C-alpha cells in the first residue's frame, strides 16, 4: 500500500456509492494471475428450499403447503427433480449456458444454535466451531496463494466484514467521500493520524479507494444506489488489479409472509450476478467464479405466518464462466420425517467449506496443505474434484 495521499483522495464525490440498507461493504484483494473469485454473503439465512425447490419430492408440499411451488405455479424446472424459484428467472440464461450450478443440502459445521450471528461468524471465519477463528477464511487464503507476494486489498462503505478481515491487508471501499482540501492541508491529516495505527491504516484505505474509483468511474457522481452499483463497481475492480471481491446481500430472514419477503433479496441476488456478467468482458467472465453462501438454511416446514424459521441445511450458488455449471450438486438426504435433522431441518450432507476450498484450489491453486491447515483448519479436503471444472 502506498502511504502517499493523493489529492484525489479528497476530491468531492470521488466515490459515491450510496449506503444501501440491503447491501454491505465490498472488499477486494489484488493477486497475480487472471482468475477471479467473488464471494457473496447472503445474510439472514437464505431459504435454499425456496430458491431451489425439490419439487420431485412429495414431502415438500406437505411440509410447505403454502410456500411450495410446482412447475404449474411457475417453478422453473432444472433437472426434473429440482426447480428454480421464478423470482430468480433472470439467472436461467446462465444455467442454460452451463455457467450456473447449485449445491444443495449444504451447510457450515454450525449446528443446533441457529443464531444468525454465530452462524455468520462460522461462515466467514471458516472455523469448525463458533469463535474458533478470529479472521476471515478469504483473508487467510490470500497468504496461501502462490506468487501473491505483492498483495494489496480493499472494503466498500462503512463497516468492514469478517470474511475478508485479518492480518493480510484488504482495501475497504469508501462511500461518497466528499471533501476538497488543498495539498498542504492533506499533509496535515496524514500527520494527524501517523501515530495511531488504526487511523493511519484507514487514511491509507481512503487514499487507495478514491484513486481507484476515479480510474474506474471517472467523474460520474450520481450513480444509483444499491446492488447494481455494487456489482458494477466489483466488475470494475476485477477488470483492473483486483482478483478477489466480497460483498453481502441482506434481507433473507423471512420469518413472515415469505412469498413477499423473499422477493427483494432474491431479485438482488439475480441482479448482482447478471450485472457482474454484463460488466465483465467475455475473457474475464470465463475466468471468474462467484460463490454465494449463507449462514444456514431455514426450517423444512413453513411456520404459522407463511414464513420459515431458522434451520440448518441450505443451498450455495456457484456462477461464472469458470464454474462447472448446469448442475444441482447434492447428496440428497430426503425430506421424509425421519430424515429431517432434529425433526425440522434439511439435513446437511455437504460441508460448505469443501466448496469454498474447491474454489480456492481451482482459481488460485491453493495447496491442500494450506487449505487444511491455514484456511480451513481441521478440514479434510475432498480432492475428488467435485464442483471443479473439467
Amino acid at each position, binding site marked *: 500500500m502506498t502511504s502517499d495521499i493523493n489529492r484525489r483522495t479528497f476530491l468531492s464525490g470521488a466515490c459515491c456509492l450510496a449506503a444501501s440498507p440491503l447491501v454491505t461493504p465490498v472488499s477486494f484483494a489484488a493477486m497475480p494471475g487472471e482468475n477471479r473469485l467473488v464471494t457473496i454473503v447472503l445474510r439472514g439465512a437464505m431459504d435454499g428450499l425456496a430458491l431451489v425447490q425439490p419439487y420431485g419430492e412429495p414431502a415438500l408440499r406437505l411440509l410447505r403447503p403454502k410456500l411450495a411451488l410446482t412447475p404449474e405455479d411457475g417453478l422453473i424446472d432444472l433437472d426434473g427433480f429440482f426447480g428454480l424459484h421464478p423470482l430468480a428467472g433472470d439467472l436461467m440464461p446462465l444455467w442454460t449456458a452451463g455457467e450456473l450450478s447449485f449445491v444443495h443440502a449444504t451447510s457450515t459445521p454450525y449446528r443446533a444454535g441457529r443464531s444468525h450471528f454465530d452462524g455468520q461468524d462460522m461462515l466467514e471465519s471458516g472455523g469448525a466451531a463458533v469463535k474458533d477463528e478470529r479472521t476471515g477464511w478469504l483473508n487467510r487464503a490470500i497468504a496461501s496463494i502462490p506468487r501473491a507476494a505483492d498483495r494489496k486489498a480493499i472494503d466498500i462503505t462503512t463497516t468492514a466484514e469478517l470474511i475478508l478481515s485479518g492480518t493480510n491487508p484488504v482495501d475497504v471501499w469508501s462511500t461518497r467521500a466528499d471533501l476538497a482540501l488543498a495539498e498542504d492541508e492533506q499533509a496535515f491529516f496524514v500527520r*494527524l493520524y501517523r501515530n495511531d495505527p488504526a487511523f493511519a491504516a484507514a487514511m491509507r484505505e481512503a487514499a487507495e479507494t478514491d484513486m481507484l474509483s476515479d480510474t474506474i468511474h471517472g467523474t460520474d457522481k450520481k450513480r444509483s444506489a444499491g446492488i447494481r452499483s455494487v456489482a458494477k463497481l466489483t466488475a470494475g475492480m476485477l477488470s483492473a488489479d483486483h482478483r478477489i471481491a466480497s460483498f453481502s446481500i441482506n434481507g433473507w430472514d423471512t420469518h413472515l409472509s415469505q412469498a413477499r419477503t423473499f422477493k427483494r433479496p432474491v431479485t438482488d441476488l439475480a441482479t448482482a450476478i447478471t450485472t457482474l456478467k454484463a460488466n465483465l468482458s467475455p475473457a474475464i467472465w470465463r475466468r471468474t467464479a462467484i460463490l454465494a453462501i449463507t449462514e444456514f438454511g431455514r426450517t423444512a416446514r413453513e411456520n404459522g405466518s407463511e414464513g420459515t424459521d431458522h434451520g440448518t441445511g441450505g443451498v450455495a450458488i456457484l456462477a461464472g464462466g469458470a464454474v462447472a455449471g448446469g448442475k444441482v450438486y447434492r447428496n440428497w438426504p430426503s425430506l421424509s420425517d425421519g430424515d429431517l435433522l432434529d425433526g425440522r431441518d434439511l439435513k446437511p450432507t455437504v460441508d460448505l467449506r469443501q466448496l469454498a476450498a474447491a474454489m480456492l484450489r481451482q482459481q488460485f491453486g491453493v495447496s491442500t496443505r494450506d487449505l487444511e491447515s491455514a484456511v480451513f483448519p481441521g478440514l479434510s479436503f475432498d480432492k475428488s474434484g467435485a464442483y471443479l471444472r473439467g
Partner: protein
Amino acid sequence: MTTSFSTMAAIRFGYGRRPGETPPESVEALIRQVERGTRETCLFPFEGIAGRRARFSAFREVQQAYNAARDANMLVMVGEQSVNPYNIVMANAFRRDQHLKVRQAVFSPNGFFERLAAFWGDHFAINARKGGAMRILAGLHEAEAIRPNLGGSFSDLLKAAVLHPAMLAYLDQTRSIGPNSPVGLKSGRGLNENLARELIELHTMGAGSGYSQKDVRSTAFVLTGLWFRNPVYETVYRTRSAEPGSYRVLGKSYGGRARQIEQVYALLDDLADRKETRRHICRKLVVHFIADDPPQPVVDAMVKVWGRSGGQLVDVYRAMLEHPLSFEEEGRKARQPFDFVVAALRALNVPAEALGPGEDAKKAGVRPATDVTALQDVATMTAAGKPALGANPLSVGIIDRLGQPIWSAPSPAGWEENLSAWVTGSQLTERIAWARRLVARFGGTDDPRMLLEATMADAARADTIETVSRAPNRVVGLAMVLASPEFNRR
C-alpha cells in the same frame, strides 16, 4: 500519565465535554445523572408521550382515507406519481422524532444516562424501516419503555422493552398464533419463533449459553397471546390466540389450561434472573463502555453485585464505575457515528435552532397532504408530493450518511461494536468532510488549540496538540480537532 477522572467520565461514560458544562467529578455524580434522567421527560415523541398516543387515531384515519382513495382510484397525482399522505405523515413524524433524539443527547446534562439510553435502545434494537406503524412507535419505545426503566431492575426493563408494541411488531410476535388456540384453529395460522429466539439469544441469556432449540420453541408457545390493536397500541393478552397447555423452558413449566399474561411475566422474570443473563448483560455493558475486549474483573464485579442486588441496574452501573480498571487505558473504543456527531455538536456549542429537521418545507411550496387537523404539523409535503421534512445534514443527515440511522439498526442484534468496523477509510473521509463543514459554520473565531483544550482537556495527545498548533489555517485546525484519533475514540 493517566487521564483525570472527570475527562474520562465525560468521554468514556458521556457524550464528551461541552464548554461551559462542569464534567462529572465522581461516581456519585454519574449515578445522579441516571436518577435525574429516568425522571425527566425527553424531547421525543415531538408531541409528548400522551400527545402521540392521543394522535394514533388521527394517523389511522389518514391511512384509511388513503386506502379508500386508492381503492376508488381517486389518488391525488403529482405528475406521474400518486401522493401517499399516510407515508408523508409517518415520514415527517419520524424525522421530527429523530431530530429531537439528537437534540436530547446534545443538550442533556445527563451524559451517562443518555449513553445508557443509547446502549439499552441498541440492546433492545428495533428498526423503524420495518414498515407499518414502526415509524411512530420507534421513538415512543425509547421514551416510554427504555428511558424510565433503565435505572430500575433489569426484569422491569426487560418486560417494558420486550412487551412494548414496537417490539411485538418488529419481531413478528403479533403474527405468532397458538396453532391449537381458537384463532389458530379457525385461521390455520401458527407459531412464529422470531421474538422467542431473540428474547433468549439477544435480550437475556445470549447466544450459545446453554439453551436448546426446544427451549426457544417452548418460549414461543408461552408468548402466544401477546397482542395489541391498531391504533391503540397498548399490549394486551388475547387468550383466544394463546396456545393452551404448559411448556417447559429451561426446566421450568409455564402456562396451563387457562392462559394469562402473568405466565409470560413469570417466564420473563425467570430469564432476567438467570446467571447466563447476568454475565451476558454485564459483559455487554463493559464491551460497550470500556473495551471491545472487556477486562474480566470488571465484568465479574458487576455480575456479583447483580446477584446481591437482585438485578438493580443502578447498582450494576455503580460496580462498573467504581472498578479502577474502568478508568484505565482511554480510547480503546471507537466513537460510533451517533456518538461522534453528538460529541462534535457539543464541542462547538452548536445551538438548538440549527438542529431542526431540514427545510425542504420552506423551499418547496408546501401544501397539506391531508385534511386531518390533528396532524397538521406533520401532514405537509413538497410540491413534488414528497414528505416535507428532510434530514438536517448537521444532525440526522450526517448520522444516516455515516451508516447508523437512528432507530434503524440493521438487525435485532443492534449495531456493530468493534473499533475496526467504524475506523475505516470511508468513515474517516466522511467525518473529516463533515467536521470541516461544521467548523466552517460554527467554529467562530476560536483558536484550534483552545477547542482542543476545551473538548479533550488532558486526553489530548502531545502529537495532536503539535499538529493542530501548526495547522495551515484555522478551519483545518478546528476540523483536525474533531477528526483527531482521540476525538474519534473514547
